[in-house]
């Protein structure tokens, strides 16, 4: 939203400077969402939802500074690794992104559904129901292909679909408020102090995880139309499935934070590859930037990078400097915020979070109905919590549903003139199917059949 708001101010600026300004804002906004997610359990952006799951648990344990330090440091490293990958692989990924069609996007969405099932916190059936309800809710609104209303019941508000930010504020923030009200005999959160160096040491411990999720985030960024909100879940899921301590996930896992934050920050540089080289935006902010460039009479495309190679380097430098700035601001402002919130009595915190939830959902579109939406999802979140049903798969269902799975499936069929064969015969589709099958095999089948498992069981029994 900030990129869209600031775009107005760039009309009179030099085109390159306007892109540099907007890219810095995008980067700062992507990182900034993790602060409220960690301290208040209110994700500032859809991409910071997995951060809220682990970060807020760490805050509850008194490790808010550790969580914020990890957020700021891994975000910085994720951004840097994304930038290095952008410089190294831009020509290769440009070719690859040109091979991406609706068939491949559909497989990406399907991969997301499997991730949703993985986020089920032990009860896969519950998680799958939550994900399906999320997919169902995402169908509400105007059909993106033929424009007919779906489940809107004649409401103008519902025609625009269920807004994601108010829904997430409800599922995470309001749920926290209601939860706090059911048990008022709570103490203030403790606070263990830590430095950025401490966070850097923790990051070093999980550096290879950080490298892996950076590559994942960058690839997702290059693929047009998926965005950081999906990549943070992919990174989180990768961290969870490769972790030696999966039991810590959902209870304040450092690996979960690294997975989510690194992946969504590496996604930002990735989204610049298709917009600069093909004129195809990788996500919503780059779509706005493309619009700004076109307003200035610049049309990015294959020849653009040949004639203006300096643009890539200048954007890379701008994003790197923005990264340094958000480390400084995030470290000091974040610490200040944490100390302020932790020292505030818990009773007052409930009122603050309630007001911020209402205000945050209202401010998204300056629409009162958004407050109702947040409130509805808050009640839903409390009911789900009471039933032991995880909310994360529902959030992922909302993200993946109508905008990705439905649209891409139907686009693919329209493009293939009704044939489903390209889903299984296109080279990139086959590669994605093999990738999904391999991930599923290593996540669900291999742990049950791997050599040594019987031996392990024997040792435990003894």
């Amino acid at each position, binding site marked *: 939203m900030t990129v869209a708001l600031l775009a107005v101010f760039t009309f009179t600026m030099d085109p390159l400077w306007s892109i540099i300004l907007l890219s810095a804002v995008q980067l700062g906004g992507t990182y900034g969402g993790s602060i409220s997610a960690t301290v208040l359990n209110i994700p500032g952006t859809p991409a910071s939802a997995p951060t809220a799951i682990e970060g807020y648990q760490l805050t509850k344990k008194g490790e808010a500074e550790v969580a914020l330090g990890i957020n700021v440091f891994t975000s910085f490293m994720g951004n840097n690794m994304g930038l290095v990958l952008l410089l190294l692989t831009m020509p290769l990924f440009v070719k690859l992104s040109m091979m991406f069609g609706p068939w491949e996007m559909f497989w990406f969405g399907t991969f997301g559904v499997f991730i949703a099932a993985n986020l089920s916190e032990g009860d896969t059936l519950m998680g799958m129901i939550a994900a*399906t309800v999320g997919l169902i809710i995402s169908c509400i609104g105007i*059909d993106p292909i033929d424009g007919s209303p779906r489940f809107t019941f004649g409401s103008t508000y519902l025609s625009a679909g269920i807004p994601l930010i108010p829904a997430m504020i409800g599922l995470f923030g309001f749920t926290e408020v209601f939860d706090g*009200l059911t*048990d008022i005999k709570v103490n203030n959160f403790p606070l263990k102090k830590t430095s950025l160096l401490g966070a850097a040491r923790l990051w070093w411990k999980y550096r290879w995880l950080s490298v892996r999720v950076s590559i994942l985030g960058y690839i997702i960024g290059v693929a047009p139309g998926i965005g950081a909100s999906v990549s943070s879940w992919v990174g989180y899921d990768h961290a969870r499935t490769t972790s030696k301590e999966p039991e810590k996930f959902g209870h304040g896992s450092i690996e979960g934070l690294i997975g989510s934050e690194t992946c969504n920050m590496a996604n930002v540089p990735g989204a610049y590859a298709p917009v600069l080289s093909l004129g195809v935006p990788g996500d919503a902010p780059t779509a706005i930037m493309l619009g700004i460039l076109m307003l200035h009479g610049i049309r990015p495309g294959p020849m653009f990078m040949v004639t203006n190679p300096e643009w890539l380097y200048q954007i890379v430098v701008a994003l790197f400097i923005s990264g340094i700035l958000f480390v400084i601001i995030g470290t000091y402002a974040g610490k200040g915020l944490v100390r302020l919130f932790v020292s505030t009595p818990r*009773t*007052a915190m409930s009122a603050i979070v309630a007001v911020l939830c209402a205000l945050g959902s209202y401010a998204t579109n300056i629409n009162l109905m958004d407050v109702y939406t947040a*409130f509805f999802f808050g009640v839903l979140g409390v009911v789900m919590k009471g039933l032991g049903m995880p909310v994360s798969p529902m959030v992922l269902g909302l993200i993946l*549903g109508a905008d990705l799975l439905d649209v891409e499936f139907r686009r693919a069929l329209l493009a293939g003139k009704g044939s489903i064969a390209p889903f299984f015969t296109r080279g990139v589709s086959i590669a994605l199917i093999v990738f999904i099958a391999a991930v599923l095999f290593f996540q669900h089948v291999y742990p049950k059949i791997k050599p040594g498992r019987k031996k392990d069981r024997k040792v435990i029994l003894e």
Partner: protein
Amino acid sequence: MRKPGEIVVGLCFLVIGICFTAGAVKLQIGVPTEPQPGFFPFVDGVILIALSSLFLFRAWGGRAGDSHAFGRIKGPAAVVLALVLYVATLERLGYVITTGLLSAVVLKVMETRPRVLVLVSLSLTVISYLVFDRLLGVTLPPGILTAFL
């Protein structure tokens, strides 16, 4: 042991799935090679019916998943009511008055002392108004205080 609560929840999901599937059929499903607007909701609805049937089967057999007991209900119910009234009166009464009242209700439910309640409600309302309305430029409804704000 059968869990009546989970059976009710399973039935709720089943009904949602059936209603959604019926709604999708009304929208026109089309055929897999030429899907219409109802196709994706129809698939989702059918999946929900299948999953909720499985859930019901499991709850009936007594192998229900972990559920957490709800805590106090009275406090959250008061806040739910306050939130409904908040949204309903926000434009008419304005942000300052409604937000002050909402935070006061939350603090009252949390059994805060009256003096702290007034202090926190007042400061929270004023600070959030100044930050969002004046600093960030988010137009918050002035309501009956239009002349003063």
